[in-house]
């Protein structure tokens, strides 16, 4: 059997980690290296690291910092944020990341194909950010949720997989940070159309939510932010993660 991955997503902003809600209102969480050390102890499956302001600030990823974070990690890391070309991708893989996550640059199918040819599809992940419009239709966004596109999430997923992407993170901006549960319809829409692993993102607040994304949404894996950095209804900051026994029972 192939075990379901439960992946904490850490958001980098300024010098530290933050957590947002619906891509807004970043709250400071702490130091990423410290968080990685705690996640090591908890034997976390994998981490996603997203620099949420790199694209907006029109700057390169912070390679040295990413390298420092990755060096502490005995679990695989996917990095996303500000990646537009092969040179940046090379520098990032040199820091020791396992996977490159692209969002804004995912509209560039040639870039996806070139990256897949060099690093293998398994290392190239496309994160598709989605909002529901007033008519209830799903729309794809890039640039940290600021730029809207006419393409629907399922067609977007199909296109980037054909170009060479080996994994899709499907993220509901509406649910992000709300802890109210994933958008299962959205996850289903994408996981039914592609044959690469689909990671559900946006909205997880409980272990039941994680299970729903797999069993109802058809996702291969799940990622969550708030759930692994906050504890209790007052959202006190506490880095946490289910035990491997909890996870085993959860997905049984």
């Amino acid at each position: 059997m192939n075990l379901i991955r439960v992946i904490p997503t850490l958001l980098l902003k300024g010098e530290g980690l933050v957590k947002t809600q619906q891509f807004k209102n970043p709250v400071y969480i702490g130091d990423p290296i410290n968080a990685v050390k705690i996640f090591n102890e908890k034997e976390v499956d994998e981490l996603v690291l997203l620099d949420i302001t790199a694209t907006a600030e029109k700057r390169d990823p912070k390679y040295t910092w990413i390298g420092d974070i990755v060096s502490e990690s005995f679990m695989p890391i996917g990095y996303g944020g500000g990646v537009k070309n092969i040179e940046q991708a090379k520098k990032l893989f040199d820091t020791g990341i396992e996977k490159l996550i692209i969002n804004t640059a995912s509209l560039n199918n040639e870039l996806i194909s070139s990256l897949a040819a060099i690093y293998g599809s398994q290392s190239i992940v496309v994160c598709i950010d989605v909002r529901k419009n007033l008519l209830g239709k799903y729309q794809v966004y890039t640039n940290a949720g600021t730029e809207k596109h006419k393409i629907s999430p399922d067609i977007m997923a199909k296109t980037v997989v054909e170009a060479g992407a080996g994994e899709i993170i499907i993220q509901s901006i509406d649910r992000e940070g709300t802890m109210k549960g994933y958008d299962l319809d959205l996850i289903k829409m994408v996981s039914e159309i592609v044959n690469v692993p689909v990671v559900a993102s946006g909205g997880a607040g409980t272990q039941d939510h994680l299970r729903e994304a797999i069993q109802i949404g058809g996702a291969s894996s799940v990622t969550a932010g708030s759930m692994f950095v906050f504890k209790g209804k007052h959202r006190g900051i506490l880095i946490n993660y289910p035990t491997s026994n909890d996870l085993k029972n959860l997905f049984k």
Partner: protein
Amino acid sequence: MISIIDYGAGNLGSIANMLRKLGNPGIITSSADDIAKADKLILPGVGNFDYGMSKLQQSGLIEVLNDKVLNDKIPVLGICLGAQLMTKKSEEGKLPGLGWFDAEVKKFSFPADQINLRIPHMGWNYVTVQKQTLLTKDLPEESKYYFVHSYYIHANTPEDVMLTTNYYNDFASALNHDNIYALQFHPEKSHKYGLKIFQNFLSI
């Protein structure tokens, strides 16, 4: 001294860090002299087979690697693409591999109705020991490792299969032949389970 071979296709930092944690950091090197002096080698690698093989050819290290591995028979550990490069050939590319194993690399393929079986095989999975070696000594119970690959190694010599993993079918997730060890998964990203493998490799 352990040499971690840097031929431009690998995530070497995490391997070096795990070895450092075990108190034997080794060196990351692309120098034939360093490799000639090494008493153990690690051949890492991620990416496409032909890309990795052509990088290895361009590095000019193949001759010294063949000499150390096949003549001096020092322990060598291939990881992920590094493991696949140790075979004769791959369906992913046209270039011949190093040919240290009588094995070839094949693409996963599953019946069309198996929609839940994604390619690449990505994530944590268990291993079953088929052949006890110094590398598999005292592995923790239910050892699991991190995999990311679309192609798998098919051993033509069944005695070379050290570990198997199930992904629809059982495939060889690790091979061993004499001093040569090949791992399809990433021990450097597999917490205590990977640490144990490196510890075993250090004590060979």
